[in-house]
């Protein structure tokens, strides 16, 4: 049984704002029957078309999908459209006292429906994917089962600082059916993490040997090993001699046919985050 908070339970047992608005200013629809959840959001603006005065929803989905929709409608009332657009899926989850990670995609669906509704009202391009309805897509489809684009996935990965393909599945469903796109999702994670790190210039100009060793250990612990764990693998740091880093692969990585590829990935990470001259060597340890 899912560990739902009392607030989540309250919102699926007694959902607020179920229904429709006949003269709604904006309507956003996401999801489909085949996906297992769908949300239709109605927004009514005040006379000046500035603030949201009413919001209603219809949702097909599980308890947390109903609760997320209910929470969203409560949160956006009284906000301007620009203020409403600032709401993240994490804030929807926080409003409910948290959601199980496997159910975070429900909060993402709420945020998505809001963006679609506002974009349609403003007449611009629909900013996110809109599965089930073949509207404008941003970017190229990555997850064919759920019709999710790279642009959408990168946004969710970045906003929620996701590190593993499993997390991306929990937040977006991508990769949750046939699993064919999981390698591509991993590439997207690497891409987004790389971009985030470029925004954080923390590398000092000159490294003492001690500082370099500390940094190598930190990067291996925080950036590299969690990604290997996601695939059931691991590595152990055997030695650091100047810029030469010796590692041994463990678990699924040990004896894995693509371990040389993994070693290059480790080297690339260390060069990017520690120093350009680092070389990684795989040893038997």
């Amino acid at each position, binding site marked *: 049984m899912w560990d739902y908070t009392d607030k989540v339970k309250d919102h*699926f047992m007694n959902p607020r704002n179920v229904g429709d608005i006949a003269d709604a200013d904006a309507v956003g629809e996401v999801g489909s*029957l085949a996906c*297992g*959840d769908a949300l239709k959001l109605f927004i009514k603006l005040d006379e000046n078309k500035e603030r949201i005065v009413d919001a209603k929803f*219809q949702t*097909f*989905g599980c308890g947390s*999908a109903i609760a997320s929709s209910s929470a969203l409608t409560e949160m956006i009332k009284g906000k301007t459209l620009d203020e409403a657009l600032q709401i993240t899926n994490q804030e929807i989850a926080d409003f409910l006292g948290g959601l199980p990670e496997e159910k975070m995609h429900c909060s993402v669906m709420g945020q998505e429906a809001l963006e679609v509704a506002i974009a349609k009202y403003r007449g611009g391009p629909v900013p996110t994917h809109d599965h089930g309805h073949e509207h404008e897509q941003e970017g190229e489809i990555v997850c064919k089962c759920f019709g999710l684009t790279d642009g959408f996935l990168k946004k969710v990965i970045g906003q929620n600082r996701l590190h593993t393909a499993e997390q991306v*599945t929990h937040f977006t469903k991508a990769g949750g*059916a046939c699993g064919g796109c999981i390698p591509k999702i991993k590439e997207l994670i690497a891409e987004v993490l790389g971009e985030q790190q470029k925004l954080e210039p923390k590398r000092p100009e000159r490294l003492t040997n001690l500082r370099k060793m500390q940094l190598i250990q930190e990067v291996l612990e925080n950036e590299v090993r969690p990604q290997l764990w996601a695939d059931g693998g691991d590595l152990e740091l055997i030695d650091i001699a100047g810029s030469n880093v010796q590692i041994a692969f463990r678990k699924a990585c040990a004896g894995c046919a693509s371990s040389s590829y993994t070693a290059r990935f480790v080297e690339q990470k260390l060069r990017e985050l520690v120093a350009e001259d680092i070389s990684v060597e795989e040893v038997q340890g």
Partner: protein
Amino acid sequence: MKEIYLDNNATTRVDDAVFEEMRPYFCELYGNPSSMHYFGGQVQQKVDEARQRVATLIGAHPEEIIFTACGTESDNAAIRSALEVFPNKRHVITTRVEHPAVLTMCRGLSKHGYRVTELNVDGEGRLDLDELRNAIDENTAIVSIMYANNETGVIFPIEEVGRIVKEKGALFHTDAVQAVGKIPLNMAESTIDMLSISGHKLHAPKGIGVLYVRKGIPFRPFMVGGHQEKSRRAGTENTAAIIALGKACELAGKHLDEENTRVKAMRDRLERELLRLIPAARINGGKAERLPNTLSIAFEFVEGELILLYLSELGICASSGSACTSGSLEPSHVLRAMGVPFTCAHGSIRFTLSRYTTEEEVDTVIRELPRIIRRGREMSPFGRELLQQQ
């Protein structure tokens, strides 16, 4: 709030008489059956009695009964044994609708040089025996096909399957975890080589299982160590649970008729009334032969977890398929294999009854579920369209 427990394919309550039978074997009669003293010896006698009781329920000989820790262990042990017995046969046949205890294992084998055939089912969850005839050959080591499906209750024609398997010289294993205690089985007149039983599905405690291995069928142990179970399953016996399972099998034999009359009548009434009161509903596997206690019913345009949560709020315990698939995003692998329409694949609910189920409990579900489905549909954009049409 008194629970209305209609999830008996997930697990069952331990029968009071079963609990009484096992109770002395914790603090008083805790001896090890292997010991060379009277204190252990008297436990050995009760273990032998339990073995006889299990054998009697399925028409087997006591020496064909191996006690294990669970149905999953029995399934794993049977398949691994066959592969060791036939090291040169590199083909395994199972079905797309097996329990994960078999399916996950077989899919793992495909990564280790084995060819694995997963037989399809039709829209009612039935096998096509011609597909089996075409798939099986001299290279097939084992065919593992469940007796009855845990999600839909659909019963497979196991004896016909067994005859096809025997012609090609392969071993035949069946996961009968859901069948034993619900329908009569007789190994004396059967083509089954190995059969798995799980205690907690028939009112014995969790943590006890059985692998039946026909006399003369070669067997290689999965667990090695001591000489327990004639060296076919090492590890000190779970004596209290074995004794409990023996009692549970004795009771299951006595209640077998009731299962197929009173319990079946309640299931049929529940099914009939729900179909009458709730539009856009269908029975999964409704045209197939099914277990007497199982009802898998799909509702269009409403999601299964929500239905379960609303039922749970009223104390009604059901399932949305297999417990193993409930954390997944996909509709259950069984329903997908059956090609259940996407409009209701996410809205399937399983009610599974037992001899403890009462007519009043069934009445409560018949009264409450139509309201719950209507409520879920009123919230759903697709469900509202359906309600407007009516």
